[in-house]
């Protein structure tokens, strides 16, 4: 009690200056732990990886010891223009991940939006149940979900049995390396790429780039939509609740159909949320690792290797640490560029 009174008088006497100084000191002290941790486990690793990616370190002893050579951009050169296996693997990984992004991001966004609109209706009975059901997959670990999906999508697994009821003979999902787009083209009689087969980008032919996701990758795409749509549904829900109900009702009075309301009223007003969802989706889908590590290990026929997984195997399995770090940086670069491009694009369309 007495101390406090004393302090109060002291504070009052010395005035604002001292108070500000103390607040400033506290500011630094409060941010310091978080700052140190972030510097140590995000900042420092980035710098170390930068060094390893331009070094010839092969995985024995410290990468900072004197006998580790500086090799300049050799690792990047091998990956991007070497033409060997490293280039082919990177090309394959980028191809796989590109198709994954192209299919997952729009699908998860649309599914999440529709789910959100559906469970946002005031009149809907059991809203809580539906929200919970759609969101639940998002809280479970990707490892557990992958295990379940491996089982569901087995050769004679649950999914194939269900589609068997409709007379469809399901594929052996996780063992099927055929590209979905190639399969579709095969249906209309296009079986080989012609001139496309003769031109290579990053070690694989244009025809291979056009293979589409493999059947195995498609199962992972379904998995991604399944686990992420709930989270994004919540984001959209939050956005929807900010739109006043009257706006929608006014549109109904004007005789707008449900679709028109969605298209011309709801979606434009959700633009900021849409932006968040697309950014998060884009950043997330370029980082597929858990699913590949737990489920497919890149197989069948390398159709599910992704840059993130490739960076891991190059380092830990093949002792090519320089290349592994370089792949990580290339991935970093891709993500940053895409985010910036997408930002600019959505801004311009406003």
């Amino acid at each position: 009690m007495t101390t406090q009174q004393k302090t109060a008088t002291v504070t009052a006497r010395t005035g604002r200056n001292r108070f500000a100084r103390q607040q400033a000191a506290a500011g630094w002290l409060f941010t310091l732990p978080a700052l140190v941790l972030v510097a140590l486990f995000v900042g420092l690793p980035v710098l170390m990886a930068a060094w390893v990616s331009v070094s010839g370190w092969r995985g024995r002893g410290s990468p900072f010891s004197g006998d580790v050579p500086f090799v300049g951009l050799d690792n990047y050169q091998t990956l991007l223009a070497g033409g060997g296996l490293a280039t082919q693997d990177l090309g394959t990984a980028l191809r796989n991940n590109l198709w994954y992004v192209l299919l997952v991001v729009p699908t998860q966004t649309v599914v999440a939006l529709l789910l959100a609109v559906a469970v946002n209706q005031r009149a809907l009975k059991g809203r809580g149940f539906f929200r919970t059901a759609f969101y639940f997959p998002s809280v479970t670990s990707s490892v557990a979900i992958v295990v379940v999906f491996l089982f569901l999508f087995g050769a004679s697994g649950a999914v194939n049995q269900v589609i068997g009821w409709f007379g469809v003979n399901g594929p052996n999902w996780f063992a099927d390396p055929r590209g979905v787009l190639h399969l579709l083209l095969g249906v209309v009689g296009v079986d080989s790429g012609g001139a496309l087969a003769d031109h290579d980008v990053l070690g694989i032919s244009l025809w291979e780039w056009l293979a589409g996701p493999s059947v195995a990758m498609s199962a992972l795409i379904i998995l991604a939509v399944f686990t992420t749509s709930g989270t994004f549904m919540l984001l959209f829900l939050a956005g929807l609740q900010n739109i006043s109900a009257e706006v929608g009702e006014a549109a109904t009075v004007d005789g707008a159909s449900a679709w028109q309301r969605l298209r011309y009223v709801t979606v434009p007003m959700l633009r900021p949320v849409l932006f968040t969802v697309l950014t998060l989706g884009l950043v997330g889908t370029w980082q597929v690792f858990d699913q590949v590590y737990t489920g497919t290990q890149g197989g069948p026929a390398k159709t599910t290797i992704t840059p993130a997984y490739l960076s891991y195997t190059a380092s830990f399995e093949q002792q090519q640490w320089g290349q592994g770090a370089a792949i990580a940086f290339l991935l970093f670069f891709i993500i940053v560029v895409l985010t910036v491009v997408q930002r600019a694009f959505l801004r311009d369309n406003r």
Partner: protein
Amino acid sequence: MKRTRALLAAGATSVLLLTACGGSGFDDQGSGGGQQTSGPAKLQVLIGSSGQAETNAVTQAADAWAKSAGDSVTVTAASDLNQQLAQGFASSNPPDVFYVGSDTVASYASNGSLLAYGDELKDKDDFYPNLRDAFTVDGEFYCAPKDFSTLALVIDEKAWQAAGLTDADVPTTWDQLASVAQRLTTGGRTGLVTSSEFQRLGVFAAQAGGSLVTDGKATASSAQMVQGLTYVKSLLANGSMKFAADVGAGDGTEALGTGKAAMTIEGNWIVGGVASSYPDLQYKVVKLPAGPAGPATFTYTNCWGIAADSKNQAAAKQLVEAMTSSDQQLTFAKAFGVMPSVQSAADGFRQQFPAQAAFIDSAADAQALPNEAGVSDVITDLNSKLEGLGTGDPQQILDATQQNLEAALK
């Protein structure tokens, strides 16, 4: 002052949190190099175990050695051997002794992680020569072969008899294999099922006289290689052979055990696999048929690697000698079904396991896959292409592999 004290308290709490959560650990990272010269050694052994039986057997053997040598040994079964080794080498604190596959020996040798001690072993001439070659990189015999297996033809007895086949029909040529595979193919059962990797299919290329690498040069697209794969493709084409994945099985053992295959090509690890998962299966093991260039099969082997950064290399070498002795290997054979890597134990093995004679008899025809650095990546890539062999062109597949191999061997 109260304020200062409060701030200090905040700081102290942070520190406490950091330490409370970071208490225990395994950071007994001795610093500095140099060999331990006196006192009992503490050996860390990391194994890529096939299961509890192997872990127990190795632990027992290691403990017995430790007791007699006055040292102590900790045996750990790795969950991902390659990754854990990589992490150990990078931290300069690797396990002292560990399994190394013949496909990874060159990459560990090339970054200097592996001690080349093979030539210092007392009984180094007792190892099968082709196993010694598997662990010889640039003329240096790096590590002692732990054990090995060869590939042989494994046949479901009931299916064999049901097709009206007898012992006289056991195939010894490609044509005979094709015809029995055809006869054994019925409804839900395929004559021959193997996984689609080169580690299995490659035996036919070897039987045609082909090899991925000959005298350090890439020969993946040789006429013999193409001939071997073309033969496989012909079996696939008429349906008498399928890949394990295509019949919904993980590997040949599973296909045979679940009745989806009448024959498969596997190593003698199939014995343990069948015993634990499909105890009712009756099967026999015969040597693979001979191809146009004679009999050939593949051999798979691991060695006991010793880390170049180990501080207990002398003790580690003694441990390895104990583990590779003829008697000890026969004990391992009994415990988890591997074949001894020393020739002096071959007769003992035949006596104990007459049903597996075909595996050990194949040792003379067995080749190890090339062990040059980078080749295992090329084979992984080849495997991804072989999955499409049924509809693919052997020449084209092998041409691509030839290119990759040339790049890798440069």
